[in-house]
């Protein structure tokens, strides 16, 4: 494996509650290589979005914080504990992020052109005119039609798919090394989703981007990911190459997710849903977080948290009773 651009070690994010700080992300290790798409999969409340925000240094404070002992190294530079100024130099420049809701993620009172040009001027030091020309080129790149006119339009004049293209243009404005994509197609219709995923795929190849793609949709994962990390209750429970994970899931939660997912191309005789629902951050037991919902759980699972262990090269599973 090539040298990772992003190396995360023991990342923990906490939130303040009446009973003290509650963990929402509980010690995550991740490596992201150039030219690779890593899908971070999980249901709501699994901590996958917070992980991305933590990388950007945008965990909403003062109610939330990155816990001591966490490390996020980007091209060898430590981001945890870095100054706001240092982070601003990285954000939007060498690490960029796109979000789920294209409807609310753009400033309604600024033209689209100005919003793209802003990042270029801040990070690349281009003048007004040069930044504007560069923004036009970017709109071309993300295939927004009749770009000259659309530069002067406001976000409300764009459809959801087009807004997400604008978000991508903003993200790519400074040729970043890493792109964090937080459910970028969840709010879009399927045909538009396919277009946006196709665009991301092209751009990733052209720019040698490392993409951290956050989603709950296993179909999208199968479509675009090179590697997969499955999150449950703030931990990674399984990771590996996408083919291996889908062919032979080892963790009962991954197994359950796949068993709950319907397929358009095949009849599924009987759905095998996972019973119960995701535990609240404060309501975790001593043992494995998934044990209360796990069909394979034994007494050890209730008392002792399993470690994330290699079961094959490049394949990690956090389970006492892997399949």
């Amino acid at each position, binding site marked *: 494996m090539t040298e990772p651009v992003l190396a995360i070690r023991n990342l923990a994010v906490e939130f303040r509650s009446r009973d003290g700080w509650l963990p929402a992300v509980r010690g995550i290790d991740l490596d992201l290589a150039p030219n690779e798409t890593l899908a971070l999969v999980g249901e709501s409340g699994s901590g996958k979005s917070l992980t991305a925000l933590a990388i950007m240094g945008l965990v909403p404070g003062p*109610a939330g914080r990155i816990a001591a002992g966490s490390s996020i190294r980007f091209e060898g530079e430590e981001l945890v504990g870095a100054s706001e100024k240092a982070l601003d130099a990285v954000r939007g420049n060498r690490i960029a992020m796109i979000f789920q809701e294209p409807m609310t993620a753009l400033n309604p009172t600024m033209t689209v052109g100005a919003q793209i040009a802003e990042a270029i001027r801040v990070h690349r030091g281009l003048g007004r005119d040069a930044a504007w020309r560069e923004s036009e080129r970017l709109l071309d790149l993300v295939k927004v039609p009749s770009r000259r006119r659309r530069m002067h339009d406001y976000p409300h004049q764009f459809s959801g798919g087009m807004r997400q293209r604008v978000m991508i243009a903003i993200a790519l404005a400074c040729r970043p090394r890493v792109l964090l994509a937080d459910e970028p197609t969840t709010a879009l219709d399927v045909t538009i989703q396919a277009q946006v995923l196709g665009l991301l795929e092209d751009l990733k190849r052209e720019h040698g981007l490392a993409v951290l793609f956050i989603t709950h949709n296993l179909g999208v994962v199968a479509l675009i990911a090179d590697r997969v990390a499955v999150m449950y209750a703030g931990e990674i429970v399984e990771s590996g190459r996408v083919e291996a994970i889908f062919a032979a899931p080892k963790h009962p939660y991954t197994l359950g997710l796949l068993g709950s997912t319907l397929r358009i191309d095949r009849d599924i005789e009987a759905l095998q849903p996972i*019973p119960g*629902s995701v*535990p609240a951050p404060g309501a975790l037991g001593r043992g494995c977080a998934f044990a*209360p*919902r796990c069909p394979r759980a034994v007494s050890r699972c209730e008392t002792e948290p399993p470690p994330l262990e290699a079961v094959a090269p490049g394949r990690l599973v956090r389970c006492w009773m892997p399949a």
Partner: protein
Amino acid sequence: MTAEAVAIETVRRRRSAFRFAAAPLTWIGAALIALIIVAALLAPWIAPYDPLEQSIADRLMPPSAEHLLGTDSFGRDVLSRLIHAARISLAVGVLSIALAMVAGCAIGITAGWIGGWFDSLVMGALDVLMSFPSLLLGLMVVAMLGPSLEHLVLAIAITELAPFARVARAPTLALKERDFIEAGRALGLSELRIIVVHVVPNLLGDVVVVASLWLATAIRTEASLSFIGLGVKPPTPTWGGMLREGFETILDAPWLSVAPSLAILATVLALNMIGDGLRDAVDPRLRRD
């Protein structure tokens, strides 16, 4: 699927926004208002003198042990007048707000529920009403009908109709589109039942907040009208009227202006504190879940 297969997670009860540490201002306001209400209720027993008893010999006396807040230009005890005036202020405020609340909510809910041109018409009319300065509107009404307690209540109620109609209409419009209202229709509930059982309880919170905030305004308007001379007729003591009389001798006896000023300020401020706290507790946008 069996019942136990569905784990029922107990969602932690919302952190009470009413604990003192969370909202100290609300509690200070509540204590202050409680004090004023008790004083008003017990006025005949706790006031040291008769508020109407004149004594030319004792006129314009500065505060002393005998008259804690001094006497006015008729020699009447200021503290006693102040305590008795609280009754008028509170009564006018509460009555006018109750009137405005009932009428305003009825108008707002009806307009929101029926919608369409009826809604535009009613809200347009209320906009006109609202665009008039409330003090001027009150002034006009009282000037036309003549100053009296009932007319004062009516005038203030009219000036505060529009805010209640608005605050009742907005959630009605939003609730009308909610799925549980449609579900109610699909279940065959009557329109009246849907409004009474499913709409009204969901907007009461907003209405109560507005009521507490506008009660402060009502008391302020009452004082203003009394100050201009359009309030309850003298010699009945009112805070605004006392300030008006005190203002005439402000150079010789400034305490006559200070005492009613502080009484009005304390009451309005206390009500605003309560209203503010209530709004924070009710407004979901400000509440952190």
